[in-house]
């Protein structure tokens, strides 16, 4: 594997290797000296065309713990905001000797393009592209699910996960559907019909418009961020109606199994898809997701960059 562009490209073995490696990374960095020498001399560029402080910092911490040199290349105030093309930015990074480019881009497929257009030979890691995918988010979600529901190296086979909210615009949902199904989990998408993509019935997972109907049967619920602006595009009548039908609040949470957990990729809209009480409940694992994100990204960086350089695919 040279790039990480989509969780659909991961076999069960690949996915388990990443999660197992992340578990080792967690142990190795749970001590005073958190740094490992593994990627000494390697250069990782964080190329962010969209603001995302949490994802960028997570990748930065992961790369630095593996001793890589990290260059942050943000769109704001740089040549990118002055209209430089993705290609020219890529050529610049190539000239700087980037070994890996971690890219966040508003256009679906931009990381794929970066990896395959013959502009650079660096490893490309997709840190979120448009409404397409966000593979490391799905990996950290799977890691968190595994840690709580199956033990550190257990299997997610048969684990029931509901992904709730704006599936249509969510890269987190797409990456999770691929990865969780590869890992054997049973996924149910829950959303109003307007926020489900055409053709979702071909994704291989269950689909429901009724949150209450599916909630009791889930081992985990993954709440997606829903932007209030969607209301103006007539995806739903009002934020109030949305949260009444699809938001997770305390009474609704009470109908979940006692061992069921709640995930959210952040940033949360408290009061919209998730109530403040639920967000602060001990069964809501948002803070742990952030911690796990670093370990998963260390694992990905190590597995893609730690070995010998693979020639361009």
């Amino acid at each position, binding site marked *: 594997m040279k790039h990480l562009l989509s969780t659909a490209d991961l076999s069960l073995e690949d996915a388990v290797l990443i999660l197992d490696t992340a578990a080792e990374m967690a142990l190795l960095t749970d001590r005073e*000296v958190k740094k490992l*020498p*593994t990627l000494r001399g390697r250069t990782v560029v964080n190329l962010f065309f969209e603001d995302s402080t949490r994802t960028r910092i997570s990748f930065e911490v992961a790369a630095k713990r593996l001793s890589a040199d990290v260059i942050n290349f943000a769109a704001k105030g740089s040549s990118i905001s002055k209209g430089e093309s993705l290609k020219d930015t890529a050529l610049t990074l190539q000239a700087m000797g980037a070994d890996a480019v971690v890219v966040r881009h508003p256009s679906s497929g931009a990381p794929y393009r970066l990896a395959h257009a013959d502009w650079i030979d660096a490893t490309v890691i997709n840190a979120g592209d448009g409404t397409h995918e966000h593979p490391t988010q799905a990996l950290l979600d799977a890691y968190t699910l595994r840690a709580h529901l199956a033990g550190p190296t257990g299997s997610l086979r048969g684990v029931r996960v509901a992904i709730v909210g704006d599936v249509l615009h969510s890269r987190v949902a797409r990456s999770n559907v691929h990865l969780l199904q590869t890992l054997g989990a049973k996924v149910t998408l829950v959303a109003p019909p307007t926020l489900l993509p055409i053709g979702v019935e071909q994704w291989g997972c269950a689909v429901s418009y009724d949150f209450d109907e599916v909630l009791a049967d889930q081992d985990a619920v993954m709440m997606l961020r829903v932007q209030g602006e969607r209301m103006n595009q007539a995806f739903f009548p009002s934020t109030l109606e949305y949260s009444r039908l699809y938001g997770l609040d305390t009474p609704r949470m009470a109908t979940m199994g006692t061992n069921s957990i709640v995930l959210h990729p952040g940033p949360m809209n408290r009061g919209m898809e998730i109530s403040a009480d639920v967000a602060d409940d001990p069964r809501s694992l948002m803070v742990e997701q952030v911690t796990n994100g670093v370990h998963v990204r260390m694992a990905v960086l190590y597995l893609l960059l730690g*070995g*010998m*350089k693979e020639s361009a695919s």
Partner: protein
Amino acid sequence: MDHGRVVMDGSDIARAIRRLSHEIVESTKGSQDLVLLGIPTRGVELSQRIAAAIEEIESQAVSQGSLDITLYRDDLRLKPARALLPTAIPVGGIEDKIVVLVDDVLYSGRSVRAALDALNDVGRPRAVRLAVLVDRGHRQLPIRPDFVGKNLPTSTQQLVRVHLRDTDGIDSVVVSEEVR
């Protein structure tokens, strides 16, 4: 099964482990501050068996764990990325302890170098010693074992493979001519 010459069989290995255990206890003057850390994969099984032998000799539990060196290797870029193996530092840590690193075969010395680096990030032992089942020579670094099960003169063309009961189903050390 492996082609090649068996240079140690089950009883040879058992004898070597017993002797290594005695030597370790003697040199560390008991098992009080001793921590055995095996280098995965077979170093871990060896260190478990040495620990069991020392417990028999001393009638006292011995601190034992494993130390993966993958992330510290100097040849990472020569092969595709490898899966990590478990690191398990025993409760009580290694601070001010006498750590004995245990590995199956000592050859270039590079694994031991990586293990010393890895150990450095875990803590600061009072002393670090090295125990190996087989020393086949051809060191590339200034590293010397403290406890050796068997010195085995080899050529660099040869392959030395250690098999252990729990890992491989049999105890044996086999030397074969490397097919290039």
